[in-house]
């Protein structure tokens, strides 16, 4: 068995547990803020963007959009001022990587934001942190003050004429606010309902101005890329999905924790080597990859590589990198039910198909789990899921059916043994 130190590759978690996160001196001693200095004194915005583009870095918030390209769109967009937002609303069940990054190394994210600001020409940034993250909010606020005092934020950064500052805003308990346009509505002080896209945020984002929004983990990758170059980053991970990913393990697994590994590491390595396998003499039943909006994968897919493309091939998604491990003493449908309850509760209600659809899906799954459904219900479940995937307004409604569709694909028997045509088909 390989040791975990050989499997793990720490870029984002480079300082985690090694430095005092409350000390900017510690961060600087570990090489911190030297990439920002370089970016503002020796690099042109176009050069920063090119480096990030060449690195192949893709967003770690779930959608996997190429980061450099996003920055280029915003840099070229008409309109001023421009904004950069750090998305720290982390609400995908099973995900706690952003919290660990913020608690372990807040300056790494601030530095990434400042470099992004320099690249797109923003002078103001927002750090949107979910309201439940009381400690990270305090730590980030403190780190911002320290960075200001040290001349890494504010006017004349690192002696240049570049000016940039960050304001912290906190969420108030709404999963949908992690969706980029809902988040912008929330910063504007409104109800966090998703907007229709296009226009995309890089053209018309916060207060209608060109805006880049990036995930915490995405931003924590920036300084090392500037420091070590695009080639270095590209050498890690897979050709299409470069760099590392932080995965967070939860559920029925021995070592519950966060592991940063090269993109493309297998599910088996995460569960059985880093995760230490299934406790209490039980067997692996399934892993839900990417949070409640992610696919449920059976044991036969343990060798799937965890990267955007490989997971898409098996109808799953990388999502936030959450790995919920479930052992064979539990029921697949019980997990699906809990996911559907979550979406029913978190739908923002703006579009009817998601508002009504999430509730309908939840009732149908209840009915099936309780053995009250017939084959017509099963067909309806699948049809409604497919329609929602294609036509809901935002990613919440589009991804909500994923646990259903993947369990229908990989655990069909779990449904079939519970439905009977003897049951009377009454309005689902």
């Amino acid at each position, binding site marked *: 068995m390989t040791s975990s130190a050989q499997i793990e590759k720490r870029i984002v978690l480079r300082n985690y547990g090694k430095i005092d996160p409350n000390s900017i001196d510690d961060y600087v001693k570990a090489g911190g803020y030297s990439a920002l200095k370089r970016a503002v004194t020796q690099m042109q915005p176009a050069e920063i963007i090119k480096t990030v583009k060449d690195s192949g870095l893709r967003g770690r918030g779930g959608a996997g959009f190429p980061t450099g390209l996003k920055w280029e769109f915003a840099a070229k967009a008409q309109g001023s001022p421009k904004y950069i937002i750090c998305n720290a609303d982390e609400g995908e069940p099973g995900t706690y990587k952003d919290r660990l990054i913020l608690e372990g190394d807040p300056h790494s994210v601030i530095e990434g934001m400042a470099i992004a600001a320099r690249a797109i020409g923003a002078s103001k940034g927002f750090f949107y942190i979910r*309201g439940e993250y009381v400690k990270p909010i305090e730590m980030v606020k403190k780190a911002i003050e320290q960075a200001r005092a040290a001349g890494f934020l504010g006017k004349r950064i690192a002696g240049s004429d570049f000016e940039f500052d960050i304001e912290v805003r906190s969420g108030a308990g709404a999963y949908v606010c992690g969706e980029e346009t809902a988040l912008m509505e929330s910063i504007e*002080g409104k109800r966090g309902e998703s907007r229709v896209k296009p226009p995309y945020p890089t053209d018309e984002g916060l207060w209608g101005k060109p805006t880049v929004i990036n995930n915490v983990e995405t931003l924590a990758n920036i300084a090392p890329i500037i420091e070590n170059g695009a080639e270095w980053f590209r050498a890690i991970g897979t050709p299409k999905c470069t760099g590392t990913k932080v995965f967070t393990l*939860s559920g029925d697994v021995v070592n519950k924790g966060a592991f940063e590994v090269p993109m493309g590491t297998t599910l088996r390595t995460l569960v059985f080597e880093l995760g230490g396998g299934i406790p209490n003499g039980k067997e692996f039943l399934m892993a839900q990859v990417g949070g409640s909006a992610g696919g449920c994968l059976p044991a036969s897919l343990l060798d799937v590589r965890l990267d955007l493309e490989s997971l898409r091939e098996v109808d799953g998604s990388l999502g936030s990198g959450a790995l919920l491990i479930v052992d064979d003493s539990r029921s697949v449908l019980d997990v699906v039910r809990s996911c559907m309850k979550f979406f029913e509760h978190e739908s923002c209600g703006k579009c009817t198909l998601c508002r009504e659809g999430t509730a309908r899906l939840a009732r149908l799954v209840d009915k099936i789990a309780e053995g009250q459904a017939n084959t017509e219900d099963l067909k309806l479940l699948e049809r409604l899921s497919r329609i929602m995937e294609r036509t809901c307004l935002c990613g919440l409604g589009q991804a909500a059916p994923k646990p259903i569709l993947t369990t229908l694909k990989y655990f069909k028997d779990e449904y079939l043994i519970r439905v009977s045509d003897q049951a009377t088909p009454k309005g689902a």
Partner: protein
Amino acid sequence: MGCCKEAPALSAEVDRQLDEVVGKHKDQPGALLEILHEVQRIFGYLSDDVLIAVSKKLGIRTSEAYGVATFYSLLSTKPKGKNIIRVCVSGPCHVMGSDTILQSIEDELQIGVGETTSDGLFTLETTSCLGVCSDAPAMMINDKVYGNLTKEKVRMILRSYAEVKEASVS
């Protein structure tokens, strides 16, 4: 404003506190959510009177403030107990037994989800993932997170809050 209500009868002290919060954010665009957060921290919840007063001070419609106050689960337009318990019921916590935890709290406090104990000490709610899933099942009481919960642990935690109350009464 198209509002038929008279200016609410808030005490001068309450009005002064609201002025202070609103004043602090006066140059900050889109600060409504931040203001409501802070106001709730002072008064425990966002009453109609307080929402009307805040919207007047900000020059926005009351319906806008109300719409925001009711959208977010951390904001409340109804009074709640002194301590708010939020039990996580999302996937990982569900798998690790949040149902049992919820049940044991209901038994211990003799209330259901959404209810407040008759002494006003606790309100029980459920919540989506708190981001501490490696310590599932988990809950939050006010600003504090508790993980790796068992029935016994929950009972001890609840009693520690109840004792604080008894100590302050005597």
